[in-house]
């Protein structure tokens, strides 16, 4: 009896969480003009409409570029920062860690506004680069957290063994440390990409005029009407931001299974 109640409760919670998402996905395949039930038939027309909508495609390309660059920069910086923090005794290590992780803890709006004000203050206007910088600040903590956790688990003596065998510190990094770090690097890059791709708050503050990302584009479209195109766009976003990490995770699992570690 008690267990059944708990089961029911769990089902309700899941329904509450995923039903809206399911509705969006379902309605994106609706043939009707109106984004509402009942469905009148299965159709890909809203996806075609998206494809033909220049504004949406532009936003999509912007988001993609932004996400990829952000992932690249965040991951590179994140690896370097983690190496410095974990492998070397640098003064003020704790302080530096806290500062690097802080963007997760500070409310996003506050961070967005302060970066905007700061850049205005030093006389840098809004630009794509600034938007990118903002996204890097947001995503860097996640990369550092995953990479650091993995780096702590890489035994120092494996690197020492490589050194003793004649590999220079650089060669040791590229032939031992980085390959062992790869799952975390990949996870960090995926995190960075999806967070950047999803981000709206910061983006609204930082984006230069005329530039839209997918989330700000949806936001803008919602102000005019609730078109079923938005459902289709939502479906695409779900596929990207959920599917990509899942794909990455199974790839990592497959790789490590091959090695038996």
């Amino acid at each position, binding site marked *: 009896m008690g267990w059944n109640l708990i089961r029911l409760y769990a089902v309700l919670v899941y329904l509450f969480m995923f039903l809206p998402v399911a509705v969006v996905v379902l309605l994106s395949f609706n043939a009707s003009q109106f984004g509402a039930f009942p469905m009148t038939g299965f159709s890909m027309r809203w996806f075609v409409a998206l494809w033909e909508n220049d504004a949406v495609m532009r936003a999509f390309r912007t988001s993609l570029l932004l996400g990829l660059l952000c992932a690249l920069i965040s991951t590179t910086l994140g690896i370097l920062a983690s190496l410095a923090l974990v492998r070397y005794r640098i003064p003020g290590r704790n302080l530096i860690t806290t500062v690097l992780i802080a963007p997760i803890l500070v409310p996003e709006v506050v961070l967005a506004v302060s970066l905007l004000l700061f850049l205005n203050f030093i006389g840098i206007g809004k630009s794509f680069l600034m938007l990118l910088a903002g996204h890097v600040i947001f995503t860097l903590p996640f990369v550092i957290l995953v990479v650091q956790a993995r780096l702590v688990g890489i035994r120092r*003596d494996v690197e020492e*063994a490589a*050194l*003793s065998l*004649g590999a220079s510190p650089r*060669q040791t990094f590229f*032939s031992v440390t980085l390959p062992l770090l790869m799952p975390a690097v990949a996870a960090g890059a995926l995190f960075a990409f999806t967070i950047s791709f999803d981000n709206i708050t910061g983006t609204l503050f930082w984006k230069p005029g005329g530039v839209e990302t997918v989330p700000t584009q949806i936001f803008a479209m919602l102000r005019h009407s609730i078109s079923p195109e938005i459902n289709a766009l939502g479906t695409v976003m779900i596929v990207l931001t959920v599917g990509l990490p899942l794909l990455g995770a199974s790839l990592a699992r497959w790789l490590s299974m091959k090695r038996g*570690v």
Partner: protein
Amino acid sequence: MGAVNLSDVVKRFGDFTAVHRMSLEIPEGSFLTLLGPSGCGKTTTLRMIAGLLDPSEGDIDINGRRVNDLPIHKRNLGLVFQNYALFPHKTVAENVAFGLRYRNVSRADIARRVQEALELVRLPHLASRYPAALSGGQQQRIALARAVVIEPDVLLLDEPLSALDANLREEMRVELKNIQKRIGVTSVFVTHDQSEALAMSDQVVVMSEGRIEQVGAPQEVYNTPASEFVARFLGAANILPAEARGIEGETMVLDVPGLPRLGIPRSRAPRLAGAGAARLVIRAEKLALTPVDAPADDRVSVPAMVEAVDYQGQSARYFLRIGEGENTHQVQAINMIDERPFAEGEAVSVRVRPRDCAALPLGTANGGGGSAA
């Protein structure tokens, strides 16, 4: 001149001195063991030779060349760790080939030398496995193959057997010693296990608190310990207060309170110049228990009382009370059991050959130098 030379090497971590002014000569091709309790500075010393730590003072030479400023990857060393430290993302063959890739060895030669190294450790069939799919003993053999395939000038081993279980450890120590002998590489081995040190080494360096207590061949450090610390650390030893009376010919005469006068060969008391306070050292296995009525032989015999028996199967460890009146001493004896062990409370006679005893001067803080021949 040794293959490895330490001269007046000091290592400080902040205020703490981990290694005090250590000098050591390690001859070409020899197997030298750093032996001592946890925290005595063995690993620190080894890591300085490896180039993983910089000495605070002093010089380290390898093959006559000062290497203080030479980074580890240019020292041509083989390093073997307690936890194997194999590259988990590389196969066994790739692990072994790793060092050759940085040495201008042709592809064909790499393949051949990897094969030879794997045959040396008797695991050629595992070449394509990943380390996670190997047992501890196999991993350690691969680590050894990886270290020796580059033909290092010195092989450094930090407790390579400690992570293995007891049976495997003994098997591996024989094998390790064989391989070392076969390829003749100068080796420095770190352990806190005295039986490993005695079984494998040409020279044993006994260390305590960052200082060398004694350097010598295994038999030498075992039979004629240079200090009370060495006597206690290597096996079970009885250490009794004694008074050296002087030298008579080739004999050193000693009195232990409550026991009859004892003359031991002078060679067993090399550090005792003449009369004075001393310590008598008798190994627990050299004390033999006999029934009180056993016929006399060439051994010195004193009456004793069995206070406790620690039964160990084929042997037993006895705790005995010897001496008279106020001057009694507890000693321990480890004897093979003949028929039945002696019982608690039994009166026995305990015997020892004078040449199985050793004597030390009292209170020689035996610090500082020392060098292997």
